[in-house]
């Protein structure tokens, strides 16, 4: 990992665990990477469309769309992302 990288923990919850085959991983992204970059990385690596109609996503416990600059929000070291299927009431 270079000094310019940020390491982000990504949790794959519920059905997303099946889609990726793992529960959690730590990923090093180049400094300056935004949520949009994570979105592209998820699509390329796991074919997960996020934001998308069947996936929900949080950054440090808040929805991506509520992050300060939404998809343009820059990641910081030790940020935590969680991905899970669409919730719809229980």
């Amino acid at each position, binding site marked *: 990992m270079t000094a310019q990288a940020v390491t982000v923990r990504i949790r794959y919850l*519920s059905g997303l665990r099946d889609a990726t085959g793992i529960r959690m991983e730590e990923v090093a992204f180049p400094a300056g990477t935004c949520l949009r970059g994570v979105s592209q990385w998820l699509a390329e690596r796991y074919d997960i469309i996020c934001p998308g109609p069947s996936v929900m996503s949080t950054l440090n416990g808040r929805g991506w769309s509520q992050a300060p600059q939404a998809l343009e929000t820059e990641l910081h070291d030790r940020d935590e992302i969680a991905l899970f*299927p*669409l919730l719809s009431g229980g």
Partner: protein
Amino acid sequence: MLNGYCGRILRVDLSRRTSKVELLSEELITLLLGGRGIAAKYYWDEIAPGVDELGEKNKIFFFTGPLTGTPLVSTTKFQLATKSPETRMYLCSNCGGDFGPQLKQAGFDGLIIEGRASEWTYLTIKDGAVSFGDAGPWKGFTSTRTLEVLRETFGESKCGAMSIGPAGENLVRISYINVDNRAFGRGGPGAVMGSKKLKGIAVKGTGDISLANPERVAEIRKAAVTDLKQSRANHTKFGTPQYIEPLNTLGCLPTRNFQTAYFEECDKVDAHTMVEQYVEKNYACYRCTVACGKMCLVREGPYKGARARTEFETVGLLGPNCGISDFGAVVKANQLCDELGLDTMSAGNAVALTMELFEKGLIDKKDSLGIDAHFGNPEALFGIIECIAARKGIGDLLAEGMYGVKKARPEWKKFILDVKGMPFAAYDPRGFTGNGLTNGTSSRGACHNVGGWTIRAELQSGKVDRYALGGKGALVKGAQDSRAYVDSIGMCTVVRGAFGFSESPSGDVLEAVTGHAFTPKLMEIAERIYSMERMILNREGIRRKDDLLPDRITKETIPSGPTKGRILTAEMYDVMLDDYYNLRGWDADGVVTEQTKERLGLTHILS
């Protein structure tokens, strides 16, 4: 009469063992749609304030909606209204199974049960023919066994059937009605049936449901089935228990009587554990292609042989909220509740309360009939459930519901998680402020569905952060209203998205079924229904003071997990509540204003 409706209601008087058919007004249908809307109107007309919920004058109103029984997807739903034994006020409830579609095919939009039988009775309806039978020999039967003997006696295996278990017979105020192994769960409607000595009802219909445009209905169904196969794939695989892990990660999963909102052993009760070790088969309601029901079987260990269809709320409240980390124990407790006839959600809250009182030394083994009622003890979970159903020991007090517990033991109020006597669902509102407003302003006491489910929007909307206060009034109102019309059309909320039934309704489903242009008016009708229900509550004495949240939410911070330090104080809540009342057109005390009644046509409808 519009297509999709029968235009007829069956009214049954148990006291006189008579029945009669009444006509349903088309004007009422165009104003209130069906299901929940029309049931509430009948409640307004026929249940005066002060009626004893367990007395002869209480009634049960069952109403289908225009989509119930039609060949779309999951058109299984029908609605109940009655005065709640648990909350001592208006109750609406929604249920699947075959009963609603069969009632409609028998030629009735609604069924009204009134009076009280002198002896234990069952009722059968075959098309227009109504019969009363002696259910005396079935007294003490579990709800599931009662369904079996009822169907056998009726001679119709493919019918709709409902029953109560021993808890309903014992007038336990948190007892449910088992409908084809689905549930009118909340509010204690099983005790209303019990008070009427009505052990079960079966219905068989052989008629057709008329459709305005059958070809278009078939097209809509085909497109929805394709949509649901993709959009609800996770529901098909994991059912609603798939929410356990995300909600725990979000710090919103009630744990040990809401003392915290993060369960350390979540892995042991999440959907993966369920699917990998317990799921026997999927269960689908009438005409449903999603099949989100998960029939679970315990295959080994001390609870081997236990079998139940576990849902998210049940897992959350009988599991982590009671400190239970053994999924097999949750299945066994679920089965106990189902068979004895208890609502799993209220039972989970009651057990959790007992465990906290026990751990704090406020009750002892003498109260719990020798049960070591510590959090995490499965034997305590089972034992307390049995005590409630049989009204033994502390179970006799818990059987009165949280309203009764607070009245008898006001010093325990700070440990009780309820609004208006109805205990919370498996979400901690300190992690989602909108969910607090949902619980406070729901038409039936703390309810995540009727109150408007906001969790997704509180994460996904760019406008309303989960901890924010601004915008929550509009968010909750919109969710409540859309739920009110969905509860009135007769379709399951899980599939609604595939039919355009959102807060901005689209498509032509109701037009294709009924021939009437309902879709553009749905949110207007829904708002009318919600304020009508509030008028009922106002008439029963409900005001702002009753919409407030319990002490644990407003006075205690979450002590651990991702939401550590979060709280929803009374002052924070007031900000949202004021905003909400204003948007609803209710005054500062939560009373529907005369202007709002006029605007929504309620002055005329309820005259």
